[in-house]
């Protein structure tokens, strides 16, 4: 068991290290960064803010990790968030009650995932094209549901999901932590994880070994749709309204980025949900950090891109082998190493 833990630690080390470095860098620019305060039974502070703001991308990253592990990709999650936000707002305003609203909304997300899954698994359409369909159409569907306006609501139950707190943590944080833990456990404690990895590495060999590749593929996209639905509810609850145009806009790209920053290969196979969640936190830390550091806002996107490029370069196989090379030659030629480090 200790060897498993050790393997886990080695796997997550680059992400943890990157996160720590970024947090430290922000704290230099913004000394109050690590301060936490308890007010009215809820924690406040920049760190909590990162966890809270990062909730949608973290949730999307859970489903995206599994889909990417099957050698697929889901571009539609942002649009599915918009659809589900709109459905939630429409249901709650037409008096379905909180439970009914949540069930219908989650069902909508599952249906969206089912659509993607069938296109990919049954019709054998390339995932990037198959999910592009819903990415484009989804926002239109959401606009049809909200009839072009921002559909507001003030149901306290639904709003609680966006801004309430439980055990001192904001609800969105509780939701993504619990959901991430549940999915990780289900995937790793059953054989699902291994079967998904096998499918992602070699679909035909897996099929010939008796793996139900079609069912697994569809299930992966359904999970992704479900994650998008939860993220959509949180996003809508947060602003107490469904904005079909902007909810989840470009978040599919952040989710994919989170998976990649988490060190998961876009070619499928081995995956770690925990690493993707750390990836999501890294992205959110960069976002929040730039804002807190007081850089002019027009630099934000460029700085974010630069930091992410840096993380990806450090993770790239070439850089890895270069590090190995450098650390070996360090004794022999320290001057050169220093020069190259610059």
């Amino acid at each position, binding site marked *: 068991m200790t060897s498993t833990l050790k393997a886990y630690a080695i796997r997550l080390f680059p992400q943890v290290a990157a996160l720590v470095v970024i947090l430290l860098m922000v704290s230099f620019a913004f000394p109050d960064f690590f301060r936490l305060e308890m007010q009215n039974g809820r924690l406040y502070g920049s760190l909590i803010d990162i966890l809270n703001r990062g909730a949608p991308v973290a949730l999307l990253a859970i489903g995206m990790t599994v889909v990417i592990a099957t050698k697929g990709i889901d571009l539609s999650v942002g649009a599915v968030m918009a659809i589900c936000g709109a459905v939630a707002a429409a249901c709650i305003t037409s008096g379905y009650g909180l439970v009914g609203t949540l069930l219908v909304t989650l069902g909508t997300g599952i249906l969206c995932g089912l659509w993607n899954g069938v296109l990919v698994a049954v019709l054998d359409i390339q995932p990037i094209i198959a999910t592009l369909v819903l990415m484009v159409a989804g926002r239109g569907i959401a606009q049809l549901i909200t009839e072009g306006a921002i559909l507001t609501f003030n149901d306290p139950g639904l709003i609680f999901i966006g801004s309430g707190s439980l055990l001192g943590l904001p609800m969105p944080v509780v939701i993504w932590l619990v959901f991430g833990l549940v999915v990780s456990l289900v995937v790793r404690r*059953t*054989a699902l994880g*291994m079967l998904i990895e096998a499918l992602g590495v070699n679909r035909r060999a*897996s*099929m010939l070994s*008796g793996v139900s590749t079609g069912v697994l593929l569809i299930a992966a996209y359904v999970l992704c749709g479900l994650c998008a639905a939860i993220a959509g509810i949180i996003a809508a609850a947060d602003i107490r309204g469904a904005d079909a145009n902007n909810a989840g806009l470009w978040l599919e790209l952040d989710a994919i980025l989170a998976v990649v920053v988490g060190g998961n290969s876009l070619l499928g*196979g*081995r995956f770690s949900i925990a690493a993707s969640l750390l990836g999501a936190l890294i992205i959110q830390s960069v976002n929040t950090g730039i804002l807190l550091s007081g850089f002019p806002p027009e630099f934000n996107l460029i700085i974010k891109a630069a930091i992410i490029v840096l993380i990806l370069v450090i993770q790239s196989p070439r850089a890895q082998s270069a590090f190995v090379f450098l650390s070996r030659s360090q004794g022999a030629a320290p001057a050169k190493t220093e020069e190259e480090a610059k």
Partner: protein
Amino acid sequence: MQPVNSYVLSATGIDKIFPGARALNGVDFSLRRGEVHALLGENGAGKSTLVKCLTGAYRRDGGRILLDGADIDPQSTLEAQNLGIGTVYQEVNLLPNLTVAENLFLGRQPKRFGLIDTREMNRRARALLAEYELDIDVTAELAAYSVAVQQVVAIARAVDLSGKVLILDEPTASLDAHEVAMLFRIVRRLRERGLGIVFITHFLEQVYDLSDRITVLRNGQLVGTRETADLPRRDLIAMMLGRELVEEVATEHAAKAADGEVRFRFRGFGRKGHIEPFDLDVRAGEVVGIAGLLGSGRTETAEILFGAERADSGTAETAGRALDLSSPRAAIREKFGFCPEDRKVDGIVGDLSVRENIALALQARRGWARPISRAEQDRLADQYIKALDIRTSDREKPIKLLSGGNQQKAILARWLATNPDFLILDEPTRGIDVGAHAEIIRLIESLCEKGMSLIVISSELEELVAYSHRVIVLRDRAHVAELVGEEVTTAGIVEAIAASASAGRADA
């Protein structure tokens, strides 16, 4: 010896070395003007390597190539094309989204005032294709036409560009009989025009139908060049498979033909376009060998038995009950197992560990909700790593880092872990080293002694003879003969493969 100038192309002592393998070893090949010269050999014999050396796709590592008596050293296919050597591949290498005329004149379109003169181009295209008795709309997209027509367009382009040597690399692989006839008419006409034509195919019928001479390669070496008329079919097959017919008698054959109850019974089992319906009985503790040349339907037989391709006719039953072989998953539930021929594509899951690869089929059968515990997986992996002597530093090593033979043993372990009743092995010994080879043969024999039913497909005839109780011979995607007991000899198998098509297909 023919006078030198009757050869349009002659290559002597061609060597080609790849890292770790000698693909061609001093191969001689000469092509006369106005002949169709068949280039034959099993997979990996070096046919395509030779062709690629001739057409400049590969740089040769030794030897001379003379075209019209002059030394040439093509650096690229374009250069070879300009010198007069044109090639048409099995997969037509034209642009399906351009028109027929554009394809014919791509890169050399007739121009007027610096712009492409489409009308002139279409006129010339029509004239060119008329020579091939092909009357089609040259302004339509190439993709709108059948593969056969595309093939002819490719030939027309190659001949128009090059005009001395035409290399046809398996041109008939995806054509039906009628289209093959059309293609052959065109090839014969080009022969009359004095072109030297190299014809690569796996269909021996077509070789005898069309070619004037035959060159056989095996393991990168020249076996010989013969006049087609002087080479009986069985001698040709012996050349290809490399068996000395006279000495090869079934001395080592374990002729104790299994006489137990028939355990698996297939009747009229087949799939249109894959394999003609066949009958097959397999007993417990019996090894049924399947022999035939490449493309004869060996792998197709395996795939249909395992449900990788669904049978569209016939029945399969065991112990009086129908078998569900509608998918690999269903077949595995019936305790079937299948080691595919293409280990890399269909067998291994490269990034996963040896342990996971061994556990995969068993885990898939148990379902995702009942995981095999890590301790059990470790035990399973260690057991088979030891039993089959899989050489790996540890069980967590990604399987893609193992050698071919050890990968094959791990795939075998994957199936043995499911404790199958019926195991199908497609070329279990291909591309693996000699030591592993012998171990796998021993394994087949011991599995059979334990009462497993096995189907083994192999192009190694001696191997088949050694462990098979019966051998089914395939030709042209049909089961054409069955050799039992004393009949199971390499000579007998070669004889059955070579038997003329008319005898084999009484109903055709």
